[in-house]
């Protein structure tokens, strides 16, 4: 066998192995999605969106309480997490002048990003739930904000640093004050990237269960009082899916389906923004 033939064969083997691995990965992904869609769509009905939780055996139970609770929890978490994350990222990239403090903040947020979310839940349990003596929507919101913060902070920081410094200098050279340079020129240049970071951050917390289990806990009825325990899709899904009742299990599938579609949409939107940005170049 000549040297060239050998190389061609090795190339074929490597290509076959990597194609196979990719197919296996994709296979699992589509398997998950199809099981979810088949069971989820089967369980979907209008009453799911209109009715609150009901005791097992009661056929008109719905997920309204969990959907609205989820919106409250993720909405408030975004309300606090997004501005904090974007502003902190702005500080790191634009104001910190490469100081030691900035490096420490970066390292800490990298660690926080990979911290198990249940640990964050335990932390919020200790500092919020335990002192107040009961679970609450606020506690869940705080846990989700903490998880969201480092993701948005680091993407904002990275995306702002990708904006060439000559662009900043050009704006300064026209007599622009610093905050205008940041808001009008730098943010504009990094818009798509920052938006992607925000969407990925929201998508990440929307799928969290562990930190909610012992912060916002759960509620089988509609509650919009943030100081009380609050239902979420994820915890409801966990409770329903692990229950022995068939109608609750069905609702669990519906919750899983709705949640996955929501997160999938956010992720796809995030990619679209990034692609659009690249397409412009």
């Amino acid at each position, binding site marked *: 066998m000549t040297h060239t033939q050998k190389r061609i064969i090795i190339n074929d083997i490597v290509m076959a192995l990597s194609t196979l691995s990719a197919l296996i990965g994709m296979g699992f992904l589509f398997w998950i999605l199809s099981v979810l869609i088949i069971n989820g769509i089967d369980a979907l009905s209008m009453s799911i969106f209109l009715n609150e939780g009901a005791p097992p055996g009661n056929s008109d139970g719905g997920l309204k309480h969990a959907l609205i609770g989820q919106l409250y929890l993720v909405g408030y978490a975004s309300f606090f997490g997004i501005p904090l994350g974007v502003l902190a990222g702005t500080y790191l990239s634009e104001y910190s*002048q490469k100081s030691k403090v900035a490096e420490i903040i970066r390292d800490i947020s990298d660690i926080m990003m990979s911290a198990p979310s249940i640990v964050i839940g335990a932390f919020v349990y200790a500092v919020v739930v335990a002192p107040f003596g009961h679970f609450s929507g606020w506690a869940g919101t705080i846990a989700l904000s903490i998880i969201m913060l480092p993701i948005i902070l680091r993407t904002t920081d990275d995306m702002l640093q990708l904006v060439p410094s000559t662009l*900043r200098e*050009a704006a300064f050279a026209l*007599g622009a004050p610093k905050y205008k340079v940041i808001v009008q*020129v730098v943010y504009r240049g990094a818009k798509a990237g920052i938006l992607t970071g925000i969407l990925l951050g929201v998508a990440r917390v929307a799928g969290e269960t562990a930190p909610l289990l012992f912060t916002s806990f759960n509620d089988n009825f509609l509650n919009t009082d943030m100081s009380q325990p609050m239902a979420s899709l994820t915890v409801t899904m966990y409770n329903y899916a692990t229950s022995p009742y068939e109608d609750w299990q069905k609702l669990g599938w519906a919750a899983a389906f709705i949640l996955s579609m929501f997160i999938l949409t956010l992720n796809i939107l995030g990619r679209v923004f990034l692609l659009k940005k690249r397409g412009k170049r």
Partner: protein
Amino acid sequence: MATIIEINKEKALEVKNFEFTYAGADTPSVKKLSMPVAKHNITALIGPSGCGKTTLLRSFNRMHDLYPNNKYSGEIIFKDRNILTSKEDLIKLRIQIGMIFQKPTAFPMSIFDNVAYGLKLQGIKNRTELSTRVEKALKDAAIWNEVKDRLKHDANGLSGGQQQRLCIARAVAVEPEVLLFDEPTSALDPISTAGIEELIVELRERVSIIIVTHNMQQAARVSDYTGFMYLGELVELGRTEEIFVTPKERLTEEYITGKFG
């Protein structure tokens, strides 16, 4: 040791005993430099890489202040005052002394908004006034005909040469008294370069110009005065034709004849 020509015309700027040291550096990058800059003339700064010419240029609009711990000493006189003092209003200074960079720096916004940017910073909000001044600036920068039908389009869709002229339009729109050009054509093709050079010569009517260039032919083509810098010092400043034909300093002669650099 340096040969600096006396300029009897009105001066746009006057540098006196100027020194500049970058943050953390032991020795200054520009050393005890003195030179006049004639009003409504083009002064070119040439010299090998690292000679301090861009550093000097970026001192005229205090660009170095964007980064911490850089040190100035001496004086740069502009409109009867030393602009190196801490009470200098950098925002006003940078409106009066504009800058064009090596790479085109079109902002991520429309062509119109790019040129209107500096005007809006000055508080001009009236739409008609904005569009008249944007149009005038784009005409001054010889790019109006190419962009007049797509003013709302993203400026990043323009070619490199067009973007550079857009940046010049943006800078002249605020009617500065001095324009600093930092190797404005080094990222451009020869045809765009010729266009920019022509434009710089025309702009002399209205503004005083200082241009840093690596390209000696460019300095010879566009400038009235040329300064040759070496190792942070100004070796010679004179009328451009004299610098290139009969330089007084041996170092200048060696540089322009290509013996080093």
